């Protein structure tokens, strides 16, 4: 068993353990930190597959951005020591049964299907090649998805700001509608 195998099983084990802890931990802040560990282990798997740019994006956007956003919103909406409300035991059992059935079915299908690994020469996914592919518009270029995703990010950013902005004239608007005899 080489070091690579050991690293892979380490990442796999930490992904599974910490994702289980993410969905079962009673403390919300702790489950956010467990989610951070899951995302970092996933970045490790991307590094093992030699997709360095994707792993870096995973670390900066997911582990750096989304987790910080989630922790901020946890601190804004609940107390640190507050424990999450759990679903009734009956619902937990039925969810676990349904999920286990789905997982077993999917894994059986995976092992039944014979994947043929390709022996074609691997393209090096370094930053140079990734950058060229992102802006080229020929057959293997991704210029259109790149532009679409940038517009989506802009729209989401504006939408998030508009949604979370405090409405200053909420009180006066409420009293106006109350005083309005038509309503």
């Amino acid at each position, binding site marked *: 068993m080489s070091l*690579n195998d050991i690293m892979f099983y380490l990442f796999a084990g930490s992904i599974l353990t910490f994702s289980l802890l*993410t*969905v079962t931990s009673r403390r919300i802040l702790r489950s956010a930190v467990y989610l951070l560990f899951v995302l970092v282990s*996933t970045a490790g798997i991307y590094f093992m597959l030699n*997709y360095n740019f994707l792993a870096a994006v995973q670390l900066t956007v997911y582990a750096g951005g989304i987790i910080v956003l989630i922790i901020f919103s946890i601190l804004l909406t609940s107390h640190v020591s507050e424990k999450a409300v759990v679903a009734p035991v009956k619902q937990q059992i039925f969810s676990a049964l349904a999920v286990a059935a789905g997982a077993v079915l999917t894994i059986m299908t995976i092992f039944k299907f014979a994947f043929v690994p390709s022996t074609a020469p691997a393209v090096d996914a370094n930053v140079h090649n*990734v950058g060229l592919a992102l802006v080229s518009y020929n057959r293997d270029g991704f210029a259109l998805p790149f532009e679409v995703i940038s517009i989506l990010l802009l729209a989401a950013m504006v939408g998030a700001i508009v949604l979370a902005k405090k409405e200053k004239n909420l009180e006066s608007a409420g009293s106006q509608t109350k005083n309005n005899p038509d309503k």
Partner: protein
Amino acid sequence: MIDNIPLNAFLVISTLMFFIGIYGFLTRRNLITMLMSIELILNSVNINFVVFNKFLYPNLLHGHFFSLIVIAVAASEAAVAIAIIINIYRNFKSIDVDNLDQMKL
């Protein structure tokens, strides 16, 4: 680097992660923890895309870019969802789904 590890091992990990995320989505009652379950699901799908690209089509980068774009969509989704959650908390003083039975005050 991954010569000895079969494709199925990666697929089993991502399947288990996906269904753990679904379990969390079904049993959690707090909006933020449900959002975290969705992040788990999206992450497992990303692993699937990347692994299929690496093992079955190593001469192309399509799966790589697909997961790059899924990461961007997940980021914008999290931003909008958290803005909505903060707005809900401001109006209802709670983000448990059991208490959210109306769309408007």
